[in-house]
């Protein structure tokens, strides 16, 4: 009976998503409709879509699980997500992005950069990067959603994968960005309801807000010695300054995601969808409240799962989940909360996955259709954009599906782990490659084409090198450092008496995120090379930066 109720809820939910995708299809008439929702989207719809795209299942289940291990220190990530991901992004990056996009008639992120720097190479290489790397990130989201669906609906993993991908495909390919925005806004509402219910039920289950945290603080003595040695000081305390856990939290988890969000192509493109600049300001409150109520709640509830499992089975959350961080939150929901909530939570997770996926497929599809095929190869006739982008989206979905299935088959456990880490890698790559070039495109009139190209190249190279040879988690995963230099990471010094980590003052180099190294190098590259290479003509700069009436006079 419970399974029938669950299936009915999931089917009703998927039906609404398909209906909204169909509405997007009905209201799409032009290329601008398909790529930018006609530049007329409602600010609140845009803000909810931005938030729902930003927050995938990995933010709720993955990072919620990380919070269960590391503790409430992860709340700093909620603050940076709101302050950088919403406030800085919308108030500072949003208005000039919208203006520049409109003046240059840019429809995609690569097109915005390509037209600002008058470079097909920049447009094509940005699009190629999106087309090659984003499917990995998308397949991570796709696989996690398929896993939940198959577990709860009694489908096989493959069936769930194809069913889920098929529904996302129909709503995105037909509905374009209008379909994506409508479905995202609906899914954001579902996510908010699910997460608020999760918080309230958890406080109720654990004896109220203050009592719950007091119990969590009292668990301090139960921290396993292995974690204490790494700097863990309890779930209501931040890890000890300079310790391995402190660097993992601050140097890897928090910085990579916080900064990377500013240059995510699927998010940047949303600034170009609104009609007026004021609508970006109006979007800020909704975006901020959405992040607070989704990730904020995930990071608050994550640590509290330890109190529940300690009270009921005398174990900690991670032990109870058999060491699998991603299992903690779903396991807690099933064990601690009423059965009806499991249904709401499943739909919340499906919403989180679907809203992220639809935007990813839209961006990958337009990167292939608009930027690589139409603009890169110079295919004429604008009416083709719609068809090419639709073909691009189908290709993107198939590519992500193929990666989801084949990475595991070819590389085994390593393949699955690469997919699981690809979200963080994609965020880091975007920060290192796009952020300096994008920021300079908006504010730096003296930035040159050569400077931008060099920064992208240097940013990519330094990110990849650091990720493969220094950052311990990724270097160990890819195994090149081990094969070539006989050590998991070049930051691990092997001596006869044992291993030690390369350290300069308080900095543990193996735990510094690659984007923290690559980003300053790329910024330096664009500044230095732009200083010595030919500047853009005043005409081009006037077109990019002057108000339209002055521009037409010029």
């Amino acid at each position, binding site marked *: 009976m419970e399974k029938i109720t669950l299936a009915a809820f999931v089917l009703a939910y998927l039906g609404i998503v398909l209906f909204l995708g169909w509405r997007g299809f009905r209201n799409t008439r032009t290329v601008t409709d398909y790529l930018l929702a006609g530049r007329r989207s409602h600010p609140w719809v845009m803000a909810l879509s931005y938030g729902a795209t930003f927050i995938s299942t990995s933010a709720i289940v993955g990072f919620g699980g990380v919070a269960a291990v590391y503790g409430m220190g992860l709340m700093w990530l909620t603050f940076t997500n709101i302050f950088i991901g919403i406030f800085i992004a919308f*108030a500072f990056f949003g208005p000039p992005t919208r203006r520049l996009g409109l003046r240059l008639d840019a429809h995609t992120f690569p097109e915005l950069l390509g037209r600002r720097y008058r470079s097909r190479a920049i447009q094509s290489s940005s699009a190629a990067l999106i087309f090659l790397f984003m499917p990995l990130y998308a397949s991570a989201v796709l696989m996690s959603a398929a896993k939940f669906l198959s577990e709860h609906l009694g489908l096989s993993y493959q069936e769930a994968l194809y069913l889920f991908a098929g529904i996302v495909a129909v709503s995105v390919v037909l509905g374009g960005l209008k379909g994506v925005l409508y479905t995202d806004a609906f899914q954001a509402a579902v996510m908010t309801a699910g997460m608020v219910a999760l918080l309230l039920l958890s406080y109720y289950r654990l004896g109220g807000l203050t009592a719950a945290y007091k119990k969590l*603080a009292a668990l301090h003595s139960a921290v396993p010695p292995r974690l204490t040695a790494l700097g863990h*000081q309890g779930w209501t*305390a931040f890890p000890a300054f300079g310790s391995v856990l402190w660097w993992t939290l601050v140097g890897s988890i928090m910085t990579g995601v916080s900064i990377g969000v500013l240059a995510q192509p699927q998010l940047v493109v949303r600034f170009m969808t609104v009609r007026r600049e004021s609508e970006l300001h*109006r979007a800020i409150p909704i975006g901020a409240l959405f992040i607070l109520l989704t990730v904020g709640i995930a990071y608050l509830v994550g640590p509290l799962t330890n109190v529940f499992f300690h009270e009921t089975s005398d174990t900690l959350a991670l032990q109870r989940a058999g060491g699998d961080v991603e299992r903690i939150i779903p396991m807690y929901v099933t064990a601690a909360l009423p059965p009806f909530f499991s249904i709401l939570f499943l739909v919340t997770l499906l919403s989180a996955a679907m809203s992220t996926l639809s935007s990813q497929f839209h961006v990958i599809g337009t990167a292939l259709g608009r930027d690589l095929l139409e603009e890169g190869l110079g295919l004429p006739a604008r009416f083709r954009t719609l068809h090419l982008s639709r073909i691009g989206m189908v290709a993107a979905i198939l590519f992500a599906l193929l990666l989801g299935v084949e990475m595991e088959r070819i590389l085994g456990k390593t393949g699955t782990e690469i997919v699981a880490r690809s979200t963080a890698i994609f965020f880091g790559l975007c920060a290192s490659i796009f952020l300096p070039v994008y920021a300079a495109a908006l504010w730096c009139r003296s930035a040159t084409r050569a400077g931008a190209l060099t920064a992208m190249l240097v940013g990519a190279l330094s990110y990849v090198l650091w990720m493969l040879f220094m950052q311990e988690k990724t270097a160990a995963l890819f195994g090149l450092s081990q094969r070539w230099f006989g050590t998991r990471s070049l930051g691990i010094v092997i001596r006869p008496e044992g291993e030690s980590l390369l350290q300069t003052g308080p900095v543990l180099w193996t735990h510094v995120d690659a984007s923290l190294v690559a980003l300053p190098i790329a910024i330096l590259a664009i500044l230095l090379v732009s200083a010595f290479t030919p500047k853009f003509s005043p005409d081009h700069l006037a077109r990019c930066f002057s108000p339209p009436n002055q521009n037409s006079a010029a």
Partner: protein
Amino acid sequence: MLGIPDKAVFLAYALSVFSALLCVLYGVANWNKGDEPIQTEDVQWAKEEKEDIEETL
């Protein structure tokens, strides 16, 4: 403080709530800021859109 003894963690908790409030206040204070005057293209767009809708109906 709500049962959270560590100041660094409580600060993160408080900053998250305050930054969300700041965003709400900023959004309200700048509700109409940055509006550009209506251009001829806007009028043309609205006209075409109206015709399109009438045609569909």
